[in-house]
């Protein structure tokens, strides 16, 4: 089954490009024929000359980034984008969610739906759609939200996963918190699952783990693509009976997003290191999983600087809320192991009832996928997709900052210009306060 990716805005088109580059490199790397062909079918289709063409639709309101991504892909010589898979306009959305959602989105609805429909028709069977976008700017967030809404209408029964890049806490777009609030509140009603990468976290991974000196956006996007690829590449699941799963999005969503109030998924991967060091490093599953488990419960997104003091709460000392304990309570976790000796890995630590909310059995809350094929040159690698309180704090910060700005009425005239009123903002704020409150109640 195949996944159609919709790349939206500058960030979406850059991350999307890196994602295809990562999965293509990974699939063509190994000698494993089945793995490669499943991966290939999932992300690529052959064109008349037999070259792999990404199952992707590229959308932006300006041309520069799309052209760059298309050119870079063609230059790689390994894969390319479809000749008629992109749509761009001349003038961007100007960081204004309202401009993207109320003006650009509706104006180009038919063209975009047509592109996606055509790409879907290329699939023998559609596993679902992944919309890749940022929440900060105007096109990714505003047009992205509108397009997600269209996809929901056109494909009411397909799985839709949104991959969101959350901006740096400081300094990308000043109205980023407004745009984020509007995006998240709307997507919460539309999407089956919202997979989030925070730029700040990824930036730290680049500097601390990958030891990159002058971190560029392509470095950031490559890490995101690596993590996303390790989630979406073929794996053996409980339902797939010894074969590679045919339904990656469906199984991901049913494993993790079991309740409509909880859709925010975070990702962490171990190990991550400079390519030059990989050859000199050895890993053991118990070591990797011990670290990953502690990363989960202490909510650290990388294996450096883990707080080993955090322990699951015992029955006798109840801890509640953000302030009491640093323990990160999960609703559901999906662990994906790739590489050598994967069948011998012991994952019992993740089935501990203390990790989860009381109203879900740990056997239901925990899912395990495996693949004996090493991913992206790592001999052994583990990725955890978690529906937990991990994103509670950044979400709360985002809403708090937006709310403070909203109280001063700053920038609202820019949104009103395109038809988003204070009332609309209030509805979005209410929705996200509800989400925050739900995640808080997990512990």
């Amino acid at each position, binding site marked *: 089954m195949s996944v159609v990716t919709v790349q939206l805005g500058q960030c979406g088109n850059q991350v999307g490009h890196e994602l295809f580059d990562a999965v293509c490199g990974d699939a063509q790397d190994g000698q494993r024929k089945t793995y490669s062909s499943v991966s290939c079918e999932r992300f690529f289709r052959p064109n008349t000359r037999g070259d792999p063409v990404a199952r992707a639709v590229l959308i932006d309101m300006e041309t520069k980034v799309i052209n760059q991504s298309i050119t870079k892909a063609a230059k790689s010589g390994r894969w390319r984008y479809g000749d008629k898979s992109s749509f761009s306009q*001349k*003038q*961007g959305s100007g960081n*204004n969610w309202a401009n993207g959602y109320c003006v650009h989105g509706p104006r180009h609805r038919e063209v975009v739906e047509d592109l996606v429909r055509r790409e879907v028709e290329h699939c023998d069977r559609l596993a679902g759609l992944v919309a890749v976008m940022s929440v900060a700017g*105007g096109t990714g967030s505003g047009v992205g939200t509108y397009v997600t809404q269209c996809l929901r209408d056109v494909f009411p029964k397909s799985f839709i996963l949104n991959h969101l890049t959350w901006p740096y806490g*400081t300094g990308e777009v*000043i109205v980023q918190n407004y745009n984020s609030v509007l995006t998240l509140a709307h997507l919460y009603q539309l999407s089956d699952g919202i997979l989030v990468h925070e730029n700040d976290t990824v930036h730290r991974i680049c500097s601390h783990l990958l030891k990159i000196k002058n*971190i560029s956006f392509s470095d950031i996007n490559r890490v995101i693509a690596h993590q996303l690829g390790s989630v979406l590449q073929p794996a053996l699941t409980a339902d797939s009976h010894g074969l590679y799963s045919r339904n990656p999005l469906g199984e991901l969503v049913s494993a993790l997003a079991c309740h409509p109030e909880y859709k925010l998924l975070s990702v962490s991967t171990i190990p991550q290191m400079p390519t030059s060091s990989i050859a000199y490093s050895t890993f053991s599953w118990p070591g990797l999983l011990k670290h990953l488990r502690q990363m989960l419960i202490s909510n650290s997104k990388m294996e450096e600087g883990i707080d080993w003091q955090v322990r699951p709460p015992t029955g006798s000392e109840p801890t509640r809320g953000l302030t009491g304990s640093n323990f990160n309570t999960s609703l559901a976790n999906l662990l994906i192991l790739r590489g050598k000796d994967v069948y011998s890995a012991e994952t019992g630590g993740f089935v501990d009832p203390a990790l989860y909310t009381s109203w879900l059995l740990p056997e239901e809350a925990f899912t395990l996928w495996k693949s004996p094929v090493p991913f992206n040159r790592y001999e052994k690698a583990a990725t955890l997709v978690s529906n937990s309180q991990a994103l509670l704090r950044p979400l709360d910060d985002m809403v708090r900052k937006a709310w403070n700005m909203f109280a001063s009425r700053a*920038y609202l005239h820019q949104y009103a210009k395109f038809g988003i009123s204070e009332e609309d903002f209030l509805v979005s704020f209410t929705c996200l306060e509800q989400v925050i409150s739900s995640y808080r109640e997990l512990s």
Partner: protein
Amino acid sequence: MTQSVVVQVGQCGNQVGCRFWDLALREHAHVNKKGIYDEALSSFFRNVDSRKSSGRACDVGGRIQHLKARAVLVDMEEGVVNEILQGPLREVFDSTQLLTDVSGSGNNWAVGHMTYGSAYRDQIVDKLRKTAEQCDCLQCFFLIHSMGGGTGSGLGTRVLSLLEEEFPEVCRIVTSVYPSVEDDVVTSPYNSVLAMRELTEHADCVLPVENQSLVDIMNKIRHMSHCGKAGSMINRDSAIISGQGGLNRAEKPFDAMNNIVANLLLNITSSARFEGSLNMDLNEIAMNLVPFPRLHYLVPSLTPLYTLSDFSIPTRRLDQMFSDAFSKDHQLIQADPKHSLYLACALMVRGHVQVSDLRRNIERLKPSLPFVSWNQEGWKTGLCSVPPVGHSHSLLALANNTCVKPTFMELKKRFTRLYRKKAHLHHYLHVDGMEKSCFTEALASLTSLIEEYHDLDCTKGKLSPDVPRLTITR
């Protein structure tokens, strides 16, 4: 790719504009080695095949035939425009883009705004429309004018409101040259205050530039290049006052100063013209930097002012570039942003600079810069990969900062001093359409603008607690 149109009004506007076109050509010639009319060039230039009788513009992708500026030149005297037409830049303008009169506005805002504004209204609109029609996707008008005189100030602001009427969707970014305190035009306080009201009401963004600051920067660079130590000589074409490599050979007195303003315009549009890892489009400027519609005065600063011929310790120099952008003597108006309050700030970087450099410097500088309580992280950043000619990197900072207040207060003081004595008032009041209320309303507009900045200033240093959030009942 979008296009922009430059509208230059009055003597100062046309002189600055002239420098802008020269340096824009220099920059594109530097980047575009193949002689192909590319997207970047199309943003400010048309490519016309003069051999074809129709004179129709050629599409992007062909060879450069004959570049024509997307500009409208307006002056009520002939001197400056004629000089341009006889100079090396004559090729880039058509007579249809020009509008001149012979008698000037006599340093009288009312003559420019009312008399000429009404007489030439249709002609101006006609020329604007023609220029706009030649654009594939018009994004922005750049108006260049001065505040002190009659034509730039009066007719310039009239053109501004015409732009709003005719092209409400197109962004209006105004570069306004403010008079120095020792200005030789007696009526410049009147003209400036009358123009201010128009700017406050009709512009999307105003980039104020003060003559005195330009002079100071120019002197600083000249001083450095004369007394520099051996090995630290300033590169000839790298100083932002230099026109080296442009078409114009003979330097005129104001050229050095005007080059600074021309560089400001080149840098503000660089990300819209060239590629970069973090694009910053022109419509993002107002969106990010203007929290309240009237408070749209953005103080510009350019760094580095020059590069030295020995380049060592690049990181330190890169960080210095960021520090300088916030220092008093790099601002293009007489203002001290560090000791006032930031509402928002944009950093537009060009050249080989990575996002990590940007982050490091924001983190480093943030503690020393006061931001308004609800916009503590009010940074907008852009990374354009093409550096300016002669530089490896450069930075343009745009600050929406209460430090513009002293300039406005000074203007108000000088206005009031004249107005109390009714000095020169009759010159204005006998102009058709000009009434006393124009003065009182302009003064009231300026007063309330100052108050708005003042009210924000008062919140400085006060820790405002988070606003109580919505609560969810279960």
